[in-house]
């Protein structure tokens, strides 16, 4: 995998030093071998260090690790759909809702409702469903663009989770338990696999400039894993990474004078302190910081795309522009070897308690075109075969109406017992629909897939055994799937 990617020039510091001197400086630091493998594939070949995913390592780094077995996917783009998109209005048609529209159903769902006093009867979908592509997959007219790529998707209609509130459900889907403080899936992935490009963060979060999602930065925290595995939030506007550049720029001569002095002082310091590996690591971290400014700016520069591509994603259209840019950035980051990219939308656009038709249309308008374009674009560039694209939220919605002020403004309440999400790309059996809900869409009943099953399946696609990707936490070997029983959903794998 190492041969395929990233020849983006040598990092800034390298040109000023001989290759030999450079390796002398960094080769025994924690970043040493990683930098070396990036800078000189021919020297070190494609083989990284043997995998040590057993929970004990002498030091922690982001060097590429050999997975447990041959992976299908090398990278992930997770399009996280905050709020809980409604399965029966997008992907899981329920004719029985049309038939029983308005009939009472409250008793069956009372325990899961967050607002029982607002509950109405069963409610039909305001959207029309149709079958699309060769696969004949059902998608409602709320998502006209997605219908063009259905044959690349595998849809799981039988997802279920453990809590009806956003915060715990978000913790569940991101980190495998409904409690805060645990490492997120992205953290586990880069802990297990490291990353291919040491000049970019391994785990990138592209959050919405309009605001943080519910649970804030906890959505990409490393929990009990070492902090280097936490997601790096990259802003799509302004400075992409905190403190990436000084607020008041200095002239390049002044910057250089400072850097040269720092380098001289650090060398003097190191010379009198032999065998202190952490000093090498620190010097390497300064090199990387300097490089990051260059590589990050390039990776995120959407203007380098053709006008045709920009148009395909919806850049320029005020409705789609923001999400389209992030989708393009995600692709550019994956191309450069970033392991895990996660996209968020501000607040919870899919949390449609009211005005179901209006607000779902609006949420779809912001994301549908960019998402479909991302799948198409990855495919035509040959990236989809190595990249897993995931679309989904933290839970689904109820078949009954939630009415604060009558039927006109009705929406749907949270439903942890059933939701739909889809995956596309590496290792996925395209055109599959898996699992089923009951006739009203309230509960997953056939081929149920828990969030934990889903996590295990994603790790499997990346070449990792969920039972062996562990971290020794004070004597306890903890894992993404925690203590829950789970299975790989082989039926959706190619």
């Amino acid at each position, binding site marked *: 995998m190492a041969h395929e990617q990233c020849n983006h020039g040598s990092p800034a510091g390298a040109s000023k030093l001989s290759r030999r001197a450079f390796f002398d400086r960094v080769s025994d630091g924690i970043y040493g071998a990683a930098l070396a493998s990036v800078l000189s594939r021919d020297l070190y070949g494609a083989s990284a260090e043997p995998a040590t995913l057993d929970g004990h390592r002498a030091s922690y780094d982001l060097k590429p690790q050999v997975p447990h077995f041959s992976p299908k996917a090398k990278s992930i783009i997770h399009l996280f759909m905050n709020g809980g998109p409604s399965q029966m209005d997008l992907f899981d048609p329920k004719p029985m809702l049309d038939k029983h529209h308005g009939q009472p159903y409250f008793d069956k769902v009372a325990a899961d409702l967050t607002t029982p006093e607002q509950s109405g009867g069963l409610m039909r979908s305001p959207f029309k469903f149709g079958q699309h592509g060769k696969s004949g997959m059902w998608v409602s007219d709320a998502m006209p663009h997605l219908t063009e790529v259905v044959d690349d998707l595998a849809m799981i209609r039988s997802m279920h989770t453990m809590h009806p509130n956003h915060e715990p459900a978000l913790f569940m889907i991101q980190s495998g338990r409904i409690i805060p403080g645990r490492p997120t899936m992205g953290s586990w992935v880069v802990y297990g696999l490291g990353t291919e490009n040491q000049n970019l963060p391994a785990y990138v979060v592209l959050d919405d400039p309009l605001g943080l999602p519910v649970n804030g930065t906890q959505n990409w925290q490393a929990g009990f894993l070492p902090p280097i595995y936490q997601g790096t939030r990259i802003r799509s506007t302004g400075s992409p990474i905190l403190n990436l550049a000084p607020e008041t720029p200095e002239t390049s001569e002044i910057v250089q004078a400072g850097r040269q002095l720092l380098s001289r002082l650090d060398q003097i310091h190191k010379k009198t302190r032999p065998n202190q590996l952490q000093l090498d*690591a620190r010097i390497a971290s300064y090199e990387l910081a300097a490089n990051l400014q260059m590589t990050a700016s390039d990776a995120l520069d959407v203007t380098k795309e053709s006008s045709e591509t920009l148009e395909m994603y919806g850049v320029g259209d005020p409705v789609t522009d923001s999400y389209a840019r992030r989708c393009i950035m995600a692709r550019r980051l994956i191309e450069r070897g970033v392991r895990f990219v996660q996209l968020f939308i501000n607040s919870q656009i899919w949390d449609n308690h009211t005005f179901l038709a209006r607000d779902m249309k609006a949420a779809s308008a912001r994301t549908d075109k960019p998402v479909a374009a991302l799948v198409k674009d990855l495919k035509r560039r040959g990236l989809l075969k190595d990249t897993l694209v995931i679309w989904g939220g933290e839970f689904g919605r109820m078949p009954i109406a939630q009415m604060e002020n009558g039927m006109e403004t009705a929406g749907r309440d949270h439903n942890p017992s059933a939701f739909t999400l889809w995956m596309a790309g590496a290792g996925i059996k395209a055109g599959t629909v898996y699992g089923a809900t009951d006739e009203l869409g309230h509960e997953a009943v056939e081929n149920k897939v828990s969030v934990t099953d889903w996590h295990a399946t994603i790790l499997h696609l990346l070449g990792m055994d969920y039972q062996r990707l562990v971290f020794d936490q004070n004597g306890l070997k903890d894992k993404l799937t925690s203590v829950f029983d789970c299975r790989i959903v082989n039926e959706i794998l190619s």
Partner: protein
Amino acid sequence: MPVGKPHLSDKDLATIASWIRGDESVTKTAPKVDNTPLTQHDVIPVLLTRCAVCHGLRRQEGGLDLRSKASMLKGGKSGPAIVLGKPEESLMLKRINAGEMPPKQQLIVVGVKPISAGETEKVVRWIRQGAPEVEPPPAVAGTPQDPLVKDKDRQFWSFQTPVRPEPPQVQHHDRVRNPIDAFVLSKLEAKHLSLSPEADRQTLIRRVSFDLTGLPPEPGEVKEFVASKDPLAYEKLVDRLLASPRYGERWGRFWLDLAGYADSEGGKLSADLPRPFAFRYRDYVIRAFNDDKPYNRFLMEQIAGDELADYEHAPVITQELMDNLIATGFLRMAPDSTTEREVNFVDDRIDVIADEIETISSSVMGLTVKCARCHNHKYDPLPQRDYYRFKAVFQGALDEHDWVSPLTLEKYGLYFPGKYLPYVTPGATPMQLLEEERKRELVNKNLDVEIKLVQTAWDEKLKDLKKKVIEKRIASQPKDLQEDLRKLAATPAEKRDEVQRYLAQKFETLLKVDTADVKQDPAVAQEAESVEKRIKLLEYKAIPEPKIRALWDRGSPSPTYLLRRGVPTSFGPFVEPGPPAVLTNAKLTYEVAPPWPGSEKTGRRLALAKWLTNQEHPLTSRVIVNRIWKHHFGVGIVKSVGNFGKAGTPPTNPELLDFLATEFIRQGWSIKQLQRLISTSSTYRQVSTVSPDSLRLDGDNTLLSRMPLRRMEGEVLNDTLTFLAGRLDETHFGKPEPVLVRDDGLVTPIETDKGWRRSIYISQRRSEIPTVLDNFDLPPMSPNCIERSESTVSLQALYLSNNTMVKQLAAFTAQRVARESGSDPSAQITYLYNLALGRPPNPEEAKASLETLLKLKQLEPKKDGDLAALSKLCHTIFNSAGFIYID
């Protein structure tokens, strides 16, 4: 299996298999015919969970209390709830079966989930059997016959009381300053090693100053110490540092990590509301360290402060009484979403209790007790029962069936007292307290007015600015449209005519301006920031309400049941309170008694505190001395500082550990005495240079053949930069200093006219951790932090290279250097080195620094050029390894 005995029968195997599969499969395979005798303990937990909110301790809806057989027979207004032997005639079951109870419309409001069919069936069976009751089983703690914990289990090293060992004889006895050195040397000599040479005085004073106070020595202090002829100069230095108020601000943080301190609630909800009174606990901890409060007393107060003395009937509230109560905040530090959400469920509450149990057991006991929440511990002799017995210890104060939440639900006739007790200025008379309250109201009222003025003025300005943005946009439209658009913008929405309404729709985006648009102008963004700072600083001046966040026994604990697989509705046997059985014996007992005559408190936590601080306790002293050791030497004698169990690492020097543990108790549980002993040892005074022998024979420094080279922690770095710049505000205690959270997520403490406060006093809201601390490894408190990890990542380099506050501090430092050392560049460099690194530059460093400084002076623009050049030099030194690493 079992070896040497008859094999298990198929029936046995099937039973085991079904047991492994879990309860449900057992009940599913044989649901109806089951007539195993039940007792009240099969039914009471169900009723507690599903019914007791309205028919229990605090509230008896319809006069009904369902917490005991007697009260069920007595019944409520509609008659007895149960008829013995006749479930079908029992009113309670009629209501349940009719789906009326628990009432579905109120489930959420009272935080109850519906009763399940399996649970109802249990109630039916119990009533049919005549509602049999049993006496509670005897408490088993401390009795040798404990069925689940064998005497063999007690043989493990960390479960045996440490015995003070004699210091060994060593060859290099000239290096032995105190017994620590003898123990360390003996291990080193076995490998043909010895201690490294003693570090020079400049290194020593920098090392020990950072270690004990978290701040560097002043150049004058270094000079004096280096020149001193006093043979006890170093010992006196250690004494002086231990006596400094800065010591508690450094070492208090050590304890706050263990306690999981935060200034916000956190938990399952993202609002992350502030915990406005948490700071009083933080201040208590700092004072306890500064006063060298004996560790046993420190624990007693934090675990059972409310049961130490009768505060409710005290004639006057003394400092001691107040401290007792503030200290219980230790058990209120866990992330807790039930504080901010009026509706919460038993599950949520049990999670909070579990976090408190984890906090106390991982920090104080060094055991992974939390593993036994769902099953018997995999490695240690901690049966699941012991977890729930431990939980029962806290039941008087942390009761999931009688939860304390600060909100009232008066609408539903429910009332919960808060998690707060009043803060009373110790010794104050009622008149003085009234006066304080009057003053507080007055001050805060004036501040409110001031804040409103600032806010209104800014809002007005924003309005104007928005108008200007619209005007600018209109100006870019076709000429003939502009006049109409101007009119439209000036007309309120409800007064627009039809044409205007059409236009408004068409030009919606043009007319819509929000604050973000206005802030595109950097000058406006800056002003917005300064307005926010002003408001936050005004709020900061407000006098806090006289409250503390405390934990207290309420005297009526619900019975505690084991929860199978940790599932809150899978009730197992009834358990009595007690500590883990493996840690009890004839000398180390857990005895519950009322704290004082006539007290309603259970005394359960007091008994726990007494048990923990019993001199016979094998873990308490070992765990704390090991932690303190780790913070001086970078690694613990037991490396797994939070796990002294079988899956932990055995001590690298068991005699040393036991010497320290027993010496600690002998010195009255004094942490300062322990640190005096450690920091005056020869072991501590070694150089950090890695010699070839040390590298070859003691590569990872397990034997301590050298001092480790250490990097400043986030707090130390931030405080040191502020200190060097002369901008450290050393006000002690009080409300946390506010932070400014920028739109891009940068979190920076706000400067007052006195400067910035030490990091321990900066607001620690979980969702708004200052960037410097976040980048430099302050972990999320979930629920606490038993050991920080140290990372070396480019975000740290970016912070130090580019962050504005760091640059500001470099500029302040440059002014100070210029002011105090004159204008000669070489003198400035020497001064800066003495200030920041505690030593003059060596010739190479001096040369490199001078060349750069002179070059920078040429590069910087004329005005203030010299100062700017010096500032750049200071900034470079702040980034250098020699600054951030401590030899």
